[in-house]
């Protein structure tokens, strides 16, 4: 098949218009020649013999008449052993190896294969010559860090195949042939460990999708207890700048109870990803005893990197997540921030001069966001095992106002909403998830009824607090005042969590159930105080003690002592009643 070529007839921003001869496809990858390098680009619109392409790099220096070569392939990523612990850009170029090649700066047109070609993997075959296989079936496995990485029949192959040849156990590089497969027509295909998959298409090689029922424990109390996330579910974290979205994502990426975490740093500060990059290799995952980096893949297309590649980066990330789901692993994809991705869509749409929707976002914004979140989910694979992809996306709404297109489109398709509030972050109440506005449809670590009771206290306390600003403490009844103090107590000692404390920073499900039981009882206790000063002093002391309790490990004798002290304090206060 001869490759289609074309010539540039227009350049504006990162968009080129190309006149071509032959066949081109929507979303096909092409290379615009600039001297001896090719700038990678993607077809986004075709009109007659003209195609509009978004270029994944800076377009300075391109001119009318320059040559463009179409590749015949859709935008794809490499899937295979060696993805874990890597740091890629939005188009899956390995950044550390690019740095070895190009130094401090990213060089235009520089590309490297995503998976190292010099590393050997210990392959163990799991099929015999003559076995029948279809796409997604295992051919063998290799150990990748702490996981057994399944080598599968390439997902893009259609129809049934017979194994004509399979490599014996041994060490192979990712691109070496490990099997030959024979299709019904008798055509033989060579298969290596690495395969390619077009990122804009979901991998659907499973038997059925499952309802998200099992909680995904993040060890953040306000999330797990009040606004839980489910394995295979989707959630979003909108918040104004400085409210702690990224810190929350970082904490989640450390503690989340999943096998693999894919971090998509999409159009955000490079400095943030640097922290993850430098610290994860040193942090030990308590579940496995190995470094956190071994279970992490980072897709990093920061704000200064080309905007079209930013748009692609979330698809690169979700495709890698889906790939590991096929190995019956639980994967968490954290996208920070989906607003930057939506803005990339807006920039492209603007350059195509499409009719703008709300706030100049394209009219298809809603469906694009819905399609992205729908790629998550728990599945039962054809072999009966299960796996999941959970998606958590941050949103950076303009002006911190949630009434904007990206937040609204996202809220329609997620099961949990963790709205960060400026008021809480200004008051240094972290995590700044608003306990009154946020919601979750998933089941958490404690029963729904208990949580509802606690939320009622919070709401009532908030109302009293508002009222008190007008009428002062003097004008507030004792009962109302105690309700207010109880709500504050719940907030201070349970909802807030010190991310930098070793014990308090990560609260297990067991610990949350235990603590919530104790604190729930305090909220229900019919306390009585002689006056407001005494009430305030009592809750002040109770909060102090509970905070100390938060910092004591459960197996520390101190934990028990403090709990007793708390319970005694409450008994004393109720005894007066």
């Amino acid at each position: 098949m001869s490759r289609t070529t074309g010539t540039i007839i227009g350049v504006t921003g990162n968009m080129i218009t190309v006149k071509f001869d032959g066949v081109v496809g929507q979303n096909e990858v092409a290379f615009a020649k600039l001297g001896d390098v090719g700038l990678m680009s993607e077809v986004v619109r075709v009109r007659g013999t003209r195609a509009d392409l978004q270029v994944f790099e800076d377009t300075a220096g391109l001119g009318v008449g320059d040559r463009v070569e179409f590749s015949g392939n859709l935008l794809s990523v490499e899937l295979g052993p060696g993805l874990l612990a890597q740091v890629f850009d939005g188009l899956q170029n390995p950044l550390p190896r690019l740095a070895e090649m190009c130094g401090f700066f990213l060089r235009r047109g520089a590309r490297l294969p995503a998976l190292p070609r010099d590393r050997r993997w210990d392959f163990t075959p799991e099929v015999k010559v003559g076995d029948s296989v279809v796409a997604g079936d295992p051919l063998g496995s290799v150990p990748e860090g702490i996981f057994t990485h399944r080598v599968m029949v390439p997902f893009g192959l259609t129809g049934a195949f017979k194994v004509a040849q399979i490599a014996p156990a041994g060490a192979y590089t990712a691109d070496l042939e490990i099997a030959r497969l024979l299709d019904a027509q008798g055509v033989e295909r060579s298969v290596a460990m690495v395969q390619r998959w077009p990122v804009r298409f979901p991998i659907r090689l499973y038997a059925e999708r499952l309802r998200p029922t099992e909680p995904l424990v993040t060890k953040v109390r306000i999330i797990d207890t009040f606004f839980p996330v489910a394995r295979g579910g989707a959630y979003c974290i909108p918040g104004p700048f400085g409210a702690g979205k990224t810190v929350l994502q970082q904490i989640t990426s450390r503690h989340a109870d999943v096998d693999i975490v894919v971090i998509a740093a999409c159009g955000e500060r490079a400095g943030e990803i640097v922290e993850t990059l430098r610290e994860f290799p040193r942090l030990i995952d308590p579940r496995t005893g190995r470094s956190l980096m071994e279970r992490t893949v980072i897709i990093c297309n920061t704000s200064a990197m080309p905007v079209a590649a930013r748009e692609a980066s979330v698809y690169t990330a979700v495709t890698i997540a889906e790939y590991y789901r096929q190995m019956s692993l639980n994967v968490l994809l954290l996208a920070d921030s989906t607003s930057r991705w939506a803005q990339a869509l807006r920039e492209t749409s603007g350059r195509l001069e499409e009719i703008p929707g709300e706030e100049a976002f394209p009219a298809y914004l809603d469906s694009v966001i819905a399609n992205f979140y729908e790629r998550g989910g728990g599945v039962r694979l054809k072999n009966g095992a299960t796996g999941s992809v959970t998606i958590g996306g941050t949103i950076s709404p303009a002006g911190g106002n949630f009434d904007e297109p990206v937040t609204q489109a996202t809220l329609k398709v997620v099961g949990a909403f963790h709205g960060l509030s400026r008021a809480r972050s200004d008051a240094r109440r972290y995590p700044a998830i608003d306990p009154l506005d946020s919601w979750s449809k998933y089941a958490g670590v404690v029963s729904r009824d208990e949580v509802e009771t606690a939320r009622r206290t919070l709401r009532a306390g908030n109302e009293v607090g508002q009222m008190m600003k007008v009428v002062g403490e003097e004008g507030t009844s004792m009962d109302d005042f105690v309700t207010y103090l109880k709500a504050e107590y719940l907030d201070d000692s349970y909802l807030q969590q010190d991310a930098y404390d070793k014990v308090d920073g990560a609260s297990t499900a067991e610990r949350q159930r235990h603590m919530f039981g104790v604190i729930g009882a305090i909220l229900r206790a019919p306390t009585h105080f002689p006056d407001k000063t005494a009430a305030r002093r009592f809750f002040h002391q109770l909060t102090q003690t509970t905070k100390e309790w938060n910092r004591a490990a459960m197996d520390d004798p101190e934990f028990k002592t403090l709990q007793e002290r708390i319970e005694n304090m409450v008994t004393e206060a109720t005894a007066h009643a």
Partner: protein
Amino acid sequence: MRRLYHRVDRIAGNVINVRAGDVKYRELAEVSSRAGTSRAQVIRLNNDEVSLQVFAGASGVTTDAQIRFLGHAMRVPFSDALLGRVFTGGATPRDKGPALSENLIEIGGPPVNPAKRIIPDKMVRTGIPMIDVFNSLVESQKLPIFARAGEPYNPLLARIALQAEVDVIILGGMGLKHDDYLFFRDNLEENGAISRTVMFIHTAADPIVECLLVPDISLAVAEQFALQNKRVLVLLTDMTNFSNAMKEIAITMEQVPSNRGYPGDLYSQLAVRYEKAVDFDTSGSITILAATTMPGDDVTHPVPDNTGYITEGQFYLREGRIEPFGSLSRLKQQVNGKTREDHRAIMNTLIQLYAGHNESVEKRSMGFRASEWDNKLLRYGERFEKEMMDLSVNIPLEQALDLGWEILADCFEPMETGIPTRLIEKFWPAKKETPISSVSNGR
């Protein structure tokens, strides 16, 4: 061989269209007509129709203007000879010095590979307690100063520039009032800092297109100095003018506006510039401080809003003081654990008590009874505002921490502050009523 073109098809705003072949995107051209000669840059190619943004403005450009394409993108000379000099936004001398043409470097270079970045950990001392104590500035940080027009953000920038221990200062002025430009120049000169300063100044009277070039030129030069192992501080004032210039061009080019008329890529455009802040692994660093005026004192205005998402914190300048609550240095945790052991405790305690003071003030103005505790807080707040928050206070960090203890000791009992006993024992001043002047460094 480059050809000359004579036929201008369209003139709109500062953009002219000309029919020409073999032109590259972002290429530079020279436009000569009765109005004089100006450089221009290619901003759109459509078949043989080339759109050029004219640096000096299209005013006076005639339809028979001569356009000569130069075969390269915008470049700026780089050498140590830049130090002490003042240039326009188009990189031509604004002072009486000679034009420089050696060692030309392209502006708007590629981004730094994130894998080559390191976690910043060096504090930049400014002598301003509201920064040093509460929101420490860190080398390679990018921080905007959010202020209403009329706040003293330029004097603040100048002061930080003078007091920060950096090797090179680069001042990028955008839409600067001529007085402000003179203020910067005189101030740096009087304090002997002019010899380590390069200025790229676009004043409000200059052509708007040159305003767009200022950040790129300033940062390209900064990058070269940083690669020569220099610690560079870049001051940009005012980024809202830069954004407005972008808006103007975008509207001229008939781009679909997104929010309040600003182009959809405002975030990306600002981010590309701010992300030039970097600490090179084996070389120098770039720190960026940028004034961003908030139209109508509204932080949700697209320019401060997008900026806040990009930068590593922000300083709010309000009524001539750095606001302690909204202001934030996201990187302060990287450095304030290594200064003095009481730094974080003092930082948190003083702020918490000041928040308490504000509540007491509110209570008082609502007419509620002030308790004894309220009165203590009120007394404390008054001293805190006068001795710490006031921008004229100029003391090193250690002295500011000592002063913090001093104020605390004058207003409160040790236990009321909630500071860990270990630190109280070590730092709480022995005698309470000592006037500050006679204290020998606090201990």
